[in-house]
């Protein structure tokens, strides 16, 4: 394992400290308990939005703290949900008197820790509503699984909910926006090579030189099936099929097409994937009206990508387009 780190134990603390130094105009870092909050803190009278989860998915979540998106982010250890304490602290710091939305990716650990934190914040007199993101179509949502995972679609949820909070929606309305975005968002991922968790020192799974893993999550979990490497276009077909059939997305729909890199795949390849995905959507009569391409929800240095499609209506388009000023997403300001 080769990484630009010092002690594996300090990876998250040092990285978040560096993040705070680099973006002092946007955020303030609380070192202990560890969370990242907008410079200036909560906006009085506005709903606060807190998200978080294991580290290793950067820029998610701290990279989305700022005007028009998150109020605070809580980075856990690498690939491990944070404990309730920092979530509670971040929730208190994000409360501007209008309550706080928790945006939680659907993993047992995240759900349980955020749940506990919400109870504790409630005991402090802060109203908390939680929305669970579960956009990953690779996992069957049934009684026999922990349900679909929350993956790249989280960015879209955070962006739109953030815009709703910024325009002054109340807590239930902001939560409704988050729920709505989640309900019209589907994602599927593929890995060519796993990342390496610093304290583990070995890849989470090993693929031979002609294998890829379809339906991976963002924590180095193995995926749904392992197949022989195919041309990019064929892989995109494999991924888009389940995404489009699931909602389903239909001819005439307007969508956001989001090609997300898992951290170790060059941008050159992202756009090759985007090209074919766009043409498949066009063939099906689905109109891509917004796009996002790049490393937004990563899995350390995993090689691979995910494709996310969100069905847009006028309201979601307006919320997507609203000004945002964060380290990783910025427009309109």
């Amino acid at each position: 394992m080769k990484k630009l780190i010092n002690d594996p134990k300090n990876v998250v603390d040092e990285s978040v400290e560096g993040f705070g130094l680099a973006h002092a105009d946007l955020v303030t870092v609380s070192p202990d308990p560890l969370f990242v909050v907008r410079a200036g803190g909560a906006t009085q009278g506005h709903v606060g939005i807190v998200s978080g989860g294991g580290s290793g998915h950067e820029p998610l979540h701290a990279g989305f703290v700022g005007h028009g998106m998150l109020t605070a982010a809580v980075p856990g250890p690498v690939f491990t949900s944070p404990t309730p304490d920092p979530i509670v602290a971040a929730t208190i710091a994000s409360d501007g008197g209008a309550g706080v939305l928790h945006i939680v990716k659907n993993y047992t650990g995240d759900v349980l820790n955020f749940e506990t934190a919400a109870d504790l914040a409630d005991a402090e007199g802060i109203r908390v509503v939680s929305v669970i993101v579960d956009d990953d179509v690779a996992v069957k949502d049934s009684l026999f699984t922990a349900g679909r995972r929350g993956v790249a679609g989280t960015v879209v949820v955070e962006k739109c909910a953030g815009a709703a909070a910024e325009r002054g929606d109340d807590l239930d309305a902001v939560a409704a926006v988050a729920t709505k975005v989640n309900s019209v968002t589907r994602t599927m991922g593929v890995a060519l090579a796993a990342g390496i968790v610093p304290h583990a020192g070995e890849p989470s799974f090993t693929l031979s030189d002609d294998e890829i893993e379809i339906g991976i999550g963002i924590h180095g979990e193995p995926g749904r099936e392992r197949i022989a490497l195919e041309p990019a276009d064929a892989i995109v077909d494999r991924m888009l099929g389940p995404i489009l059939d699931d909602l389903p997305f239909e001819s005439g729909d307007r969508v956001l097409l989001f090609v997300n890199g898992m951290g170790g795949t060059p941008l050159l390849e992202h756009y090759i994937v985007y090209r074919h995905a766009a043409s498949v959507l066009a063939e099906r009569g689905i109109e891509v009206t917004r796009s996002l391409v790049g490393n937004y929800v990563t899995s350390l240095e995993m090689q691979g990508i995910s494709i996310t499609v969100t069905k847009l209506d006028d309201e979601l388009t307006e919320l997507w387009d609203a000004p945002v000023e964060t380290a990783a997403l910025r427009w309109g300001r």
Partner: protein
Amino acid sequence: MSLGISWVTAWIDDTVEVVSHNRTRLSELDREIGDGDHGENLDRGFSAVKVKFDTLPDDATPGAALKLVATTLISTVGGASGPLLGTAFLKGAQALGDAPEINADGVVALLTAARDGVVLRGKAEPGDKTMIDAWTPAVDAAGEAAAAGASPAGVLRAAAAAASAGAESTEPLVARKGRASYLGERAIGHRDPGAESSALIITAAADAAAATEG
């Protein structure tokens, strides 16, 4: 023949050591069907517990000591196992109240409350390939041993044996909770890391009791 605070401290000391010793192995089990951090998570938690125990008053009750374990695990482990094991210890502690000594029935009550705490938070059933597959057989075996008149140490010994067998029994299962559930059939053949660590913790309790009684 009952167990007091010295048993609790011996149990937790043992657990700290066993978890640290098995850190890599537990993470490796987790890498097979999860995200490879289970050993790391527990080790972070129990290292913190160790530090906290240094400040534990000598006259603390077993319940108070286990509550300290619970809150420390909840606030340091994270992941799925943090809230789950934390709740297990919290509910176990509540079951003990402020009794200074625990008899055989007390041990059964402790284990039962702990298991129920995990179910309360995680909603897993036996056979879902989770730590419940260690806890539930342990609770059952403990109840039977107590009914048969075993000592607290004997009850824990029976629980530990059942927990270990329970952990092993997860190997052929498909998971229905936690990250391993994403894998479907591919989880078959791998032992659940949380069941394994719970068996280690219950075994540490039995070892500590044997030494205490010894």
